[in-house]
């Protein structure tokens, strides 16, 4: 099945990318989806460079294809990052998240994703000029992460823990790190007849009419029971997490500040 899907996706990618490619650098990993996914997520006229300062950390292999940790460390990025888009090239739905940081500089973001098979992973960060800086990694995997039923749903008492949110605030030399864990099946909608049921919207709010610290759109590649890490270069006075899933469930929790 995977091979067939790949071939199909590759052929589609070739057909769709003919003639529209901007002057994009070559992909050091040679993924067949490089140009296609740039066009799909960043646009056909996107300006793109490879940049190690988008420090993407992903293990070389997925020990658990349903929970592959990803950390993007932007502490070496020379300016406050603009839009951030992450995708997993060979997943059925490659998009993982799109994030828009507010005025507080985002220095680190982490969450777990699923992989369907060995694939490249990308994080693109837009600078002030509109240029996308891309960090890439390759993760080897036995696969099945997207089409495996969530462990939450197969656990008979998942409803008891559904929506349970744990969190912590961790002081950094400069700035602040928040870590949050949400019990949610995050069903991708790709398993048998289990409908999609996942958190699609994430916001970190300062309140008091202040701009958002971060807003994030999550897609089906995100892993179940998500564990988020957000770090900001300056300490926000307060932070509140707000989440909404595609069934309309909303969650809101204070993360710290003004304690």
């Amino acid at each position, binding site marked *: 099945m995977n091979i067939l899907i790949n071939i199909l996706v590759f052929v589609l990618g070739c057909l769709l990318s003919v003639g529209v490619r901007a002057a994009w650098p070559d992909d050091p990993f040679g993924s067949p989806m490089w140009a296609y996914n740039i066009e799909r997520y960043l646009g056909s006229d996107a300006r793109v460079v490879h940049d190690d300062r988008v420090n993407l950390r992903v293990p070389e292999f997925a020990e658990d294809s349903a929970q592959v940790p990803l950390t993007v460390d932007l502490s070496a990025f020379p300016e406050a990052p603009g839009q951030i888009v992450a995708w997993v090239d060979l997943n059925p739905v490659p998009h993982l998240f799109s994030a828009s940081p507010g005025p507080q500089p985002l220095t680190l973001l*982490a969450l777990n994703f699923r992989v369907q098979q060995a694939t490249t992973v990308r994080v693109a960060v837009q600078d002030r000029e509109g240029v996308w800086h891309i960090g890439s990694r390759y993760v080897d995997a036995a696969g099945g992460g997207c089409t495996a039923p969530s462990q939450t749903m197969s656990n008979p008492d998942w409803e008891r823990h559904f929506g349970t949110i*744990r969190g912590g605030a961790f002081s950094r030399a400069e700035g602040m790190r928040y870590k949050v864990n949400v019990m949610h099946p995050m069903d991708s909608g790709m398993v048998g007849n289990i409908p999609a049921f996942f958190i699609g919207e994430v916001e970190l709010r300062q309140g008091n009419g202040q701009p958002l610290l971060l807003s994030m759109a999550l897609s089906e590649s995100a892993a179940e029971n998500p564990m988020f890490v957000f770090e900001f270069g300056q300490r926000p006075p307060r932070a509140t997490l707000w989440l909404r899933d595609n069934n309309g469930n909303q969650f809101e*929790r204070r993360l710290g500040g003004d304690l």
Partner: protein
Amino acid sequence: MISARVPRILALLVAWLAGTAAAQAPEYDLAARAIAPGIWVVEGSTENFSRGNGGNIVNTAFMTTGAGVVVIDTGPSRRYGEALRALIEETTAEAISHVLITHHHPDHAFGSQAFEPATLYMLDDARAALARDGEAFADNMYRMIGDWMRGTEVVVPDNVLAPGVLEVGRRRLQIIAMTGHTGADLVVFEPLSGVLFASDMVFHNRALTTPQSPGLLGWRAELEQLAELPVTVLVPGHGPVSTDLSPLRQMADYLTWLDTLLADSARAGLSPAEVMNAPIPARFDGISERRYELVRTTTHLYPDYEKRALSLLPE
């Protein structure tokens, strides 16, 4: 069930396509080394599973008793089990009476087809674990070692091994049930010669593995019990045989470091990818596969450390 077979068929197809030159099946090159009167060890490498080594990364053993050979573990595949049985029959004329499978991991339990079903023994909880995880392990093994697995099927032993003393001929084997590595781990002590068959409760100069471990500190506590036995030769599940207890000290040191790393990282709010990249102390330079296993252990165990370091946020 059909879908579960697909990866296996694909793996065989790939192995077949890749192995045009390898018309004849690969062979395990097993050797028996005497470590005490009537006791032999068959040592594997300290690598990870690969198509190069056929999964021969494990130590198996056998001993004569005067009333039948006792075998400890059957190796990673049917073909390994057959090679092990041939080696035993070359080494001694005594018939095989007991085959003790130490735990449900494939590198220890997948050669069992080569032995008479009536001779196979396992701790009851380990039998249940093998019945539960065996097929998934088999799919994974086909992927990792390919053609070496040909013909291998999961065999859950019928005979339940009870903790206590197992008397076979002149030997009174101490059957010790532990939990640190997989939740159901057999350790065998042979008091006549002082040989301790620690299996995967002890990895020596090879990083320990944690996919089914119930906890690092419980594992370390059980090693303290083993240190009280009058051991003259220690046979670890992976890595070189030792004539002293230094592998137990290495294990305790490594388990303590791992637990501290995970706990401190969780308290500092680190992400799992940051933990996977953490520095490993230089004193562990002699332990193979340590970075690879840190990635795996972080995946298996760090989520619980993380949750314990966070507070429940009220609505």
